[in-house]
């Protein structure tokens, strides 16, 4: 019998459209306040970041406490770019943008070079050749030395490439920005800033994940926690390096460009990206790492590569979320990215259900709206109770439903597609055959 139902994307699209148009028109007719309008945007921005963590922890099983660090990198990185476009703090309109693009290209180039040179093989060969007459620790030192030299050379090359590219990019981009009409130039810069924030976070995630992901589960969580605290401390002292970031005083005069359409657009794009990634063969491999690392490895899954891939894509999501956040208020302060706030995405994905995109989106909207609405609901003089009530609700939810709101279930278009209904003949196992094997076992 055939199931008669709508294609799963129709109800999902309908809900998305209703949400988008509802908030859009409610704001343009003035029936929700500017404050509520911002709350909705924050909710989706948080959802973007939390989806990234859900990919890392919920789908790939790598316990990360440092997600807020990538969020911060995306926020500050993109804010530097757009602030440069508005105020030209670096001397030209595209100085920060071209620096960041050049540096990223340089780092990627260096990584590709190191990958292509197959340093691990070189190290193994040297160890093999010298192990006959050197003690293991001596062999390790000897085989690491040429590696360090090669890496230093590659890094020098990367720095040279970065410097050269910066010159070129700065000139072309500045020229382009002055020649383009103002509105187009603005949108272009915003897109580039969001992308750069995201890729920079992804690159840092890749570099951090490469050595740290080898650690066991809890140790990886603690190391990433350390990473997040390092980013927070660095941001508090960022004025020592870049004056515009203003350190602990908070970065000001960032253009306020984020609005509901931008947030919704980026959110939809990223959700489609994540859903399709998870339904691809890479995605299935990512999930297999969560289920059983050793079994996955036995099946020929490159566990380490997939872990870093998931971590970098998660970082990308956090960076893009951070970039949108930076342009929402036009003000960034390190305390937004401290470790207490750093637990938020983790709480959200556990509340929503680990390994459930629907759950993450629901939980981030729920948590953000709850915290902000409590501010409105609570009577005068009881505003401080906000964070007393929130943990109580959190505790209740966890105690009553420890697998999260959705568990690992999905809704609508997020759900894994059902296998096509075909008449595949089920192989007939005769009872005699099974009886025979049973008797053999006995």
């Amino acid at each position: 019998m055939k199931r008669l139902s709508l294609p799963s994307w129709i109800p999902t699209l309908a809900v998305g459209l209703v949400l988008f148009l509802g908030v859009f028109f409610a704001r343009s007719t003035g029936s929700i306040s500017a404050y509520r309008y911002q709350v909705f945007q924050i909710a989706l921005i948080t959802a973007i970041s939390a989806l990234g963590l859900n990919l890392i922890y919920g789908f790939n099983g790598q316990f990360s406490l440092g997600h807020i660090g990538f969020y911060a990198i995306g926020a500050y990185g993109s804010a530097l770019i757009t602030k440069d476009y508005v105020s030209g703090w670096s001397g030209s309109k595209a100085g920060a943008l071209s620096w960041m693009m050049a540096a990223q290209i340089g780092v990627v180039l260096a990584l590709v070079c190191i990958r292509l040179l197959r340093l691990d093989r070189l190290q193994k060969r040297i160890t093999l050749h010298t192990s006959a007459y050197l003690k293991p620790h001596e062999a390790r030192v000897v085989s690491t030395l040429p590696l360090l030299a090669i890496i230093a050379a590659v890094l020098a090359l990367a720095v040279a490439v970065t410097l050269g590219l910066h010159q070129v990019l700065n000139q072309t981009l500045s020229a382009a920005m002055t020649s383009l009409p103002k509105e187009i130039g603005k949108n272009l810069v915003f897109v580039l800033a969001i992308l750069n924030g995201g890729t920079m976070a992804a690159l840092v995630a890749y570099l951090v994940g490469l050595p740290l992901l080898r650690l066991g589960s809890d140790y990886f969580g603690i190391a990433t926690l350390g990473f997040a605290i390092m980013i927070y401390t660095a941001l508090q002292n960022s004025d020592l390096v870049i004056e515009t970031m203003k350190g602990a005083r908070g970065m000001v005069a960032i253009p306020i460009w984020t609005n509901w359409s931008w947030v919704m657009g980026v959110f939809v794009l990223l959700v489609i990206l994540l859903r399709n990634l998870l339904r691809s063969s890479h995605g299935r491999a990512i999930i297999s790492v969560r289920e059983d690392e050793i079994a996955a490895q036995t099946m020929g899954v490159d566990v380490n590569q997939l872990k870093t891939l998931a971590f970098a894509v998660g970082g990308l999501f956090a960076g893009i979320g951070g970039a949108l956040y930076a342009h929402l208020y036009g003000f960034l302060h390190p305390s937004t990215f401290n470790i207490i706030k750093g637990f938020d995405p983790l709480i959200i994905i556990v509340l929503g259900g680990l390994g459930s995109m629907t759950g993450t989106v629901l939980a981030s909207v729920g948590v953000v709206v709850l915290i902000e609405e409590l501010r409105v609901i609570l009577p005068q003089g009881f505003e401080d109770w906000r964070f007393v009530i929130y943990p109580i609700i959190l505790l209740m939810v966890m105690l009553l439903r420890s697998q999260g709101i959705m568990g690992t279930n999905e809704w609508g278009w997020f759900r894994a597609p059902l296998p096509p209904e075909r008449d595949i003949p089920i192989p007939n196992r005769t009872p005699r055959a099974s009886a025979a094997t049973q008797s053999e076992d006995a």
Partner: protein
Amino acid sequence: MRITLEKIGLRSLVWAIYAALAAGILWGIVALIRLNGPIFFIQAIIDGLRLGFMYALIALGYTMVYGIVRLINFAHGDVFMVGSFTSFYAITRYGWSFVPAILLAMLVCMALNVVIERVAYKPLRNAPRIASLITAIGVSFFLEYFTALRFVFTADFITYRRPFEVIVWDIGGVLISNITIIIVGITLALLLSLQFIIRRTKIGKAMRATALDKPAARLMGINVDAIISFTFGLGAALAGAAGVLYAIAFPQILTFMGIMPGLKAFVAAVLGGIGSIPGAFVGSLLMGTTDVLVVSFMPMGSRLRDLIAFLILIIVFLVKPTGIFGEPQAEKV
């Protein structure tokens, strides 16, 4: 012949590198000492050890709880804070002296942590591990923000009045106060009694058995739930004592004061190898000493101290992934 030359050349190269590294470290230490004189250096080391002893008291709670239920108890730093505030009220409101105040703080923290364990962690013992981590974060938020309410402790800095006069001895230029002596003395006494409880008593044996294998311990007739509660209580008592000592050393208390010492102590426990008690102690001393050395010697050290502390953690992880005293975890197939 060729091989011999190569052998001699490579070996001497390796040893030259080792020698250069050793010389570099030695030179660094000598440079540190010469920078501000040896007395300043010794003073920094002593202050660092003092901080380290306080971290050790907190870290022990983390490491015991982790060892027995594999839970990162994020609420531990806030239990530490409650210890500070309890002794504050006992001393300033009711004029208690030091020893009863610290005992009261330990008792209150113990009761609090046992209640927390019963309410927030015990129902989740068979749930995924992350669920109790989230409730731990929730409890931590609750303790911080509830105690910051106006009718509880208020959200302001409160000046802590020490229960005794500070006496400072000058030993050849190095200043040692009776606070340092008290901190080191109490920490060592508590540590030794903890070691006694764990190594020599029946309940300690039960704790070790539970940490090793819970189902087997239950089969042997050990009341595992009671043992876990006892472990939480024991850890909290140490944290309460640490809270009092911390407030005496740095006499300004705040309801959010537990976050950073808690995290640092936790990192110290991990540095030493989580689950190991000597590891937690050594890691804490290391952590406290580097903390103070960074603040006193590095330019902008007081602003960058957390960065350096966690950088050290990550470097130790890369070299030895399970911490200094940690045993490698067996991968189960």
